[in-house]
Structure formats: structure tokens, C-alpha cells
């Protein structure tokens, strides 16, 4: 039978500091093992009880310790690289809120008059669509501004990747759940419950998984139903058109890092940080128009992602090999 807490002790050793191991983890595990050895002689039930109580105590102690050190750890992470993480986060949140707000209001103003009570609700239903566009713009401009003139060290690249993954996860969550729900709520509010039937949702009101299932069903029955293959192809294009922009944060984040580590000037960095997402969406729009007319393969929609990712990685690589930062070195902040 294995000694109690062996795996926990080993795992903690990889994560925790030497002081935490000596003061917290090792006394706890040593006492747990001692109690466990004694319980072994008293039967299986006692052994199980002692082991469970020991594990509970371990996780309780770790949680309490984490709660105590989290503010200091968070501050250290935020203060690293001249408050790079904090600056990117603050700029990204600010731009994201601003862009989302700006992209939600004009469509609302263009709508036919509705009851004042419904306007707030309609505004809310338009927010998810704006979020998918706002996240890459926010991330791109925040990275461009935050990383301007810096040499992309592995730590900076990792920071950018973490932000890009967060932006991508946000976009995927929004696309899968919030946008279909928002679009459906918008239709119901505008047309009325009796006109919009839940079963007759269009591609914009379907989640990615539901859209995929509808395409599979159409393809499976295409031999019997005329026009099913063409409808499946149309939906497949929409499916990829919904999927691909979810990864825009990742593509534009890397691209921004690559391009604007070459410049230390503030205004061009921010302007370019906004221009890159605009170029991205313009590419996607042109591709969509071409794909609809020329029946291009749906994978075409992934071209902007591939272009921006490869361009960004190439530039990061070039900059990593080049000279150091054009900015003076920043002093690390004391925790």
C-alpha cells in the first residue's frame, strides 16, 4: 500500500517555495503519514478515514495559504516587466468596453421605433456580437501599446499568449452560447413570440455545435432531398465564418507583438493596433463575398488567421534575433 500523501508531497514540491514546503506541506504530510501508519493496524475503515481527513486537511491548508499569498503573487506578476501585464489588461478592458459600446449603439439607432422598455433589452441582445469584434481590437491595441519598442522575451511572448488565449476563450464562449441566445432574443423582441418559432432558428441563432449537427444532417440526407447538398455547403461556409474569427485574438495578438516591438512611439502603436483588426475584418468580408459568389472552400475563411499568425511569428523571430529594446530598461517594482 502506498504511503499517504506521496503524490501530494511530490506535486507540492514542484509548485511551492522551499519555505512553504518546510513550514506547511512537510509537517502536514509527515503527521498525516505518522497517523496513517498507526491507523493501518486498526483496520481498513480507520485507514480510509485517516487518509481522507489528511487529504482534506492538506487542501484546506493549501487554500488558506494561497488566499494569503495570492495578493502578493498577483502584485509580483502584475509588476513584472514594468507593469506590462497590468498595462495590457487595463488598456484591453478599456478598449473592449469602448468598442463594444460603440458597435452596439449605431445598429440600435437604425432600428424601427420600439417600446422604450424594449430598447435596453435590445441593446443587451446586440452586445454579444460586438464582443466578438471588440475582443481582438482591444487585445491588438493593448499589446501594441504595452509592448511597443520591447524585445519579445519569452516572458513577454508568454504574457501575450495568455491574453490571446483568454480573448479566444471569451470569443468562443460568446459565439457558442451568447450570440445564438442574443440573436434569438432580438428576433423575438422585434417580431413577437408568435412569429418567431423556436424550431425555425436560422444559422445566426444556432450555436456552433447545433450548426455542425444541421450540416451533418443535411449531408446525410442529400441523396434523397434535392438542394440539400447546396444548403449544406452554404451552412458550412457560415459555420467556418463563425468559427474562424473566434481565433482572431490569438492571430492579431501575435501579429501586434511582432509588428510593434519594432516601434517605441505611442500614437503609431495604438493606430496600428486598431488598423490590424480592421484589416483582418476587411479580409474576412472580402473572402466572404468571394466565397459566396465563387463557391470557394469554407477553409478559405481561416486564411486571415493563418496569415496574421505566420506574419506575427516571423516578425517576433526576427526581432528576437535583432538588437535589444529601443526603450531604456525598466526597473522592477518591489513587491
Amino acid at each position, binding site marked *: 500500500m502506498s*504511503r499517504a500523501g*506521496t503524490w501530494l*508531497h511530490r506535486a507540492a514540491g514542484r509548485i511551492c517555495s522551499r519555505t512553504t514546503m518546510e*513550514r*506547511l506541506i*512537510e*509537517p*502536514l*504530510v*509527515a*503527521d498525516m*503519514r*505518522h*497517523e*496513517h*501508519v498507526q491507523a493501518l493496524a486498526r483496520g481498513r475503515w480507520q485507514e480510509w478515514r485517516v487518509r481522507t*481527513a*489528511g487529504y*482534506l*486537511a*492538506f*487542501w*484546506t*491548508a493549501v487554500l*488558506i*495559504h494561497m488566499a*494569503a499569498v495570492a495578493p502578493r503573487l498577483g502584485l509580483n506578476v502584475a509588476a513584472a516587466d514594468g507593469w506590462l501585464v497590468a498595462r495590457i489588461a487595463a488598456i484591453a478592458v478599456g478598449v473592449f468596453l469602448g468598442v463594444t459600446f460603440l458597435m452596439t449603439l449605431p445598429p440600435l439607432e437604425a432600428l424601427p421605433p420600439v417600446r422604450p422598455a424594449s430598447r435596453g433589452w435590445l441593446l443587451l441582445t446586440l452586445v454579444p456580437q460586438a464582443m466578438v469584434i471588440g475582443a481582438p481590437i482591444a487585445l491588438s491595441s493593448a499589446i501594441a501599446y504595452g509592448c511597443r519598442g520591447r524585445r519579445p522575451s519569452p516572458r513577454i511572448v508568454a504574457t501575450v499568449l495568455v491574453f490571446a488565449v483568454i480573448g479566444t476563450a471569451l470569443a468562443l464562449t460568446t459565439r457558442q452560447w451568447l450570440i445564438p441566445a442574443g440573436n434569438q432574443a432580438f428576433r423575438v423582441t422585434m417580431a413577437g413570440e408568435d412569429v418567431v418559432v423556436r424550431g425555425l432558428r436560422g444559422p445566426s441563432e444556432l450555436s456552433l455545435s447545433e450548426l455542425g449537427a444541421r450540416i451533418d444532417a443535411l449531408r446525410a440526407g442529400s441523396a434523397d432531398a434535392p438542394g440539400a447538398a447546396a444548403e449544406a455547403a452554404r451552412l458550412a461556409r457560415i459555420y467556418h465564418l463563425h468559427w474562424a474569427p473566434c481565433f482572431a485574438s490569438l492571430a492579431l495578438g501575435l501579429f501586434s507583438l511582432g509588428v510593434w516591438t519594432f516601434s517605441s512611439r505611442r500614437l503609431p502603436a495604438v493606430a496600428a493596433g486598431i488598423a490590424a483588426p480592421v484589416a483582418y475584418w476587411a479580409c474576412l468580408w472580402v473572402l466572404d463575398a468571394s466565397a459566396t459568389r465563387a463557391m470557394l472552400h469554407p477553409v478559405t475563411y481561416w486564411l486571415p488567421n493563418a496569415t496574421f499568425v505566420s506574419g506575427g511569428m516571423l516578425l517576433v523571430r526576427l526581432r528576437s534575433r535583432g538588437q535589444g529594446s529601443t526603450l531604456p530598461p525598466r526597473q522592477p517594482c518591489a513587491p
Partner: protein
Amino acid sequence: MYGLELVAASDGELKRGTVYVTLGRMEEKGYIASRLEDPPPATGGLPRRMYAVTALGRQVRDTWQFVVERFAPGFSQ
């Protein structure tokens, strides 16, 4: 005393999940001192840590008890 001995002796006042965190903080402040016992082979060679109160710890405890005895009845009225 060991951490688990303190839990057992406290009659439910101390919990096994919090006692080591508390002991660690008290040791940082110098109220207690600890030493490692010889590593017993039966428990995988991990030595247990024994804790003992320091002179400073005793002084702090006495002061705290004095404050509680002196002022706590006034607060409860």
C-alpha cells in the same frame, strides 16, 4: 508537540486544516520555534516537526491574557 497533537489537545478549538498555517505564521513572528525529529523509516523518511513556545511567545500570550481578563468583561456588558 506535533501539529496533530495540538489539534487533539485543543479539544476541537484547532482544526487540522488550519493548524499548520497558524503554526507557520507564529513561527515567522517568533512566537514559537520548531525542530525536526529524526526521520522515521516507517513514514517514508519524512521527519515530523515539533513545535515549542519561545520566550517571546510566552510574553505575548501572557500580555494577551492580561488584556482579555482586564478589558473583556467591560466589552461584554
